[in-house]
């Protein structure tokens, strides 16, 4: 008799595990569920927005100036290619580094090696 019981017990245990697995899987599945975004209501949205936008505009201006400054540095195309070839880095990185070194290729190489 006990022999007969054992497999039945095992089975129920397996079922339990399966059930557990299933609920785990369901929980995981929920992570990717689609959710409608909730709308905010009340509060002074206008003022808040204004404060943020002002700050943001200042920041954009600052960045444009920085980029302008960097772009003003004259760089040699051959130097860029030398850096790319010797250090196996992408063009954008080579250019930026060369500009930051004010176009001095030896300095740019030294900077890149030293980090």
């Amino acid at each position, binding site marked *: 008799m006990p022999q007969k019981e054992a497999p039945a017990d095992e089975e129920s245990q397996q079922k339990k595990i399966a059930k557990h697995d299933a609920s785990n899987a369901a929980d995981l599945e929920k992570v990717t*569920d*689609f*959710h409608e*975004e909730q*709308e905010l209501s009340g509060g002074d*949205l206008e003022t808040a927005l204004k404060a943020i936008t002002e700050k*943001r505009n200042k*920041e954009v201006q600052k960045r444009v100036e920085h980029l302008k400054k960097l772009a003003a540095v004259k760089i040699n195309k051959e*130097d860029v290619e030398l850096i790319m070839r*010797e250090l196996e880095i992408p063009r954008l990185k080579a250019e930026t580094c060369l500009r930051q070194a004010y176009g001095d290729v030896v300095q740019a190489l030294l900077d890149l090696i030293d980090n």
Partner: protein
Amino acid sequence: MSPNQPLPQKENAVFKKILRCYENKQYKNGLKLAKQILSNPKYAEHGETLAMKGLLLNCLRRKDEAYEHVKRGLKSDVKSHVCWHVFGLLQRSDRKYDEAIRAYRNALKCDSDHIQILRDLSLLQIQMRDLEGYKETRHKLFTLRPTQKASWIGLAMSYHLLDDHEMAVKLIDEFLKIQNKTSYDYEQSELLLYELQIIFESGNYVEVLQRMDHNAGLIYDKLSLMEMRAEVYLRLEKFDLAEKLYNELITRNPENKAFYYGMMKARCLDKDEDKVAMLEEFSKKFPRAQIPRRLPLNMSSGETFRSLVDDYMRRAITKGVPPLFVDLKPLYADPQNVKIIEELIEMYLQNLVISSTFESAGGDGAELQPVTSVVWTLYLACQHFDHIGDTKRALELVERAIEHTPTLIELYLAKAKFYKHAGNMIGAVQCLDEAQALDTADRYINSKCAKYMLKAKLLDEAEAMCAKFTRENVSAMENLNEMQCMWFQTECANAYSKLNRYGDALKKCHEVDRHFVEIIEDQFDFHTYCMRKTTLRSYIGLLRLEDVVRGHPFYFKAARIAIKTYLRLHDHPLNDKKAEQDQLESTLSKSELKKLRSKQKKAQEKVRQDEKENKDKKVANDDEKLEDTLNPEKLERPENPLEEAIRFLKPLQELSPKNIETHLLAYEIYMRTGKPLLMLQCLKRAHRLQPDHPQLHVCLAHFVSKVANQDLTGPVGAVVEKQLSSLLSGKQKSAKDLNSDFLQQHRDSYAHAVAAATVLYELDKTKQSEALKLLNFEADPLIKHGVTRERCEEVMELLESGAFGAIGDAEYLKAFKNSCARRFPLAEVFQATGVISAPRPASADATADRQISQDV
């Protein structure tokens, strides 16, 4: 909907239903609806419906059909944002992120303000860590939907990730003002804590404190709040307040190390004895706490250390704490500690035998000990002697322990470890097999046993061992890969590479690499989920973890094997399969050939069967991931091995720059690609970490001799000249002088002698006998340290592989081996009979074994 292909009202309603079905994951219903529209011949080529049908098919894992439909859709309505969006989603599900971004951008060209597309784009940008791009997209979303919570939080996060703390805080502040909740709200509590974290990171501690006081009632994670407040008090040097808080924290949890360190800072304790006194105070207050007893051992020495460690060990032995030695191991860095621990252990051993006490009669500790104390002391003692290199004593003690308690599995594990340390893997495996047989239900021992088998290159046996615990009906190899069991795969790779099975080794390395790809991929869903749940502190933690996940030792180990294997394949490329076989066969006798043929036939049959099985499986479950399989034969014949090696190297350079091996491996690669500046970069980085590393010397000498032979001009030459002089501390040296100086400076170290010998022979092949003389550690009275078994094994390998040229004097090799054997009597490789390879029973036996174990 699409202006190019408008649908009439009825069909349009159906199309909207399709979108709904997709969002709610009712893919099959969606397909039915799509059929409704497409079956009308007038709309059979309706682009957006075709695209949506493709997307639904993709969700049902019918990839080929999916691509076909989406492409057809795009062709018929190329101006539709839906078609491009769907195309992007498809690419993204195939992990082609760059292509997906391009598709989204095209979609935005059709409709620049489409919220869902912008959202999907932002997800890809954060996944790819295009932080500037993420910020721009988030800003766009913010201006389009200022009424949504996600817009505010997302934008704030994008600023935080770019270290613009001020803007991030401003955004959250404004958002909280609008939201204006006063009742219990856990999400708001998390948001407030996240804001505090940002301000803390910006270093404005005064403000953190002010805000904490102001919002204390709204924050429900009290522990985090307390921890942060205590930390802030420390930074602001408000020590009395900090002390009060750390007292509370320690009372909450007396097992948290960080709290004690905080307390030391709060009390401004600098001297070690004060710290020890403080910990003692807490030990009295919390007598059951472990940490205030263990920590003082780190910061005491001499007689104080003796009395503390004495008490610590006695408690642990009486109680029976198996990992006692592991717990004490960090203290072995100080030789004085080692001596004290050894004296104590010897005393225990002696007295336990005589009087079952730790101390001789009359002492304080003359308490009668339980019988188990004897075996735990023996266990501690044997590990101690193994650690200091006295294998003989260690084995003696462990035998005594086993005699005392033959059922304690730890003892067999220890014994196996001693054999491993002595270089005898066969012996080690035998011990562990015995241990494993004592308790077959213990997976830890099972795994350990498998690991040792792999170290002994017994691959089939290891797999059979693991199979006792892996899922049935799947091969253990496959199952362990699925479970991302990386220790197993790395050990496999190591074993394969020792057996010169390069393709198999590389396959394992690539599998490990793919686990990391998958771990990184798994972030994706959390970009939306965490934002929605406002669990931002954990989310930031996750992003930062994923950024450095390849810095894990698991990755390092696999990458090292891969790089070394690719270097070897670069130096000695394999012939194609056929030629190799012919060559092999020509050296075999007839009977051997016959055996080989039947073996090959069997192998082929197995492949065929596997293929068939695989096919069946594929039919059975559709959603099996279609990944390009790694083929060992292809892997060991790479088109450009150095490029492959660099692929594994890059993450090491980025994430493990503190490990000198990274840069030494990098040098090995770049010296083969012949890029002087990249070689120089490796040298500089390694030099910064450890200027006198022996292998670095080999690299440096190689570089100097190479640069001397090669006239570098232009900017490259200038950079090399400048950097090299700083590496050689301003002096101009030839490689030869460099080598002799190096040898003089490190005359007592064998590791450095080996490096010097390598360079000597490399520079001048006529100096062979001089180099060989340097390797002979027995004949050199000046060498005091560094003669380890591992190094001797390496030297043996170098000698045998011809790194020092053909050795005319055959006696030399024999003599070297003999002196190693004298020094390391248990190590297999130095035995007179030559290299003992592990006995490899036919794989058929292993499978049979597995069958039996599964039947049981």
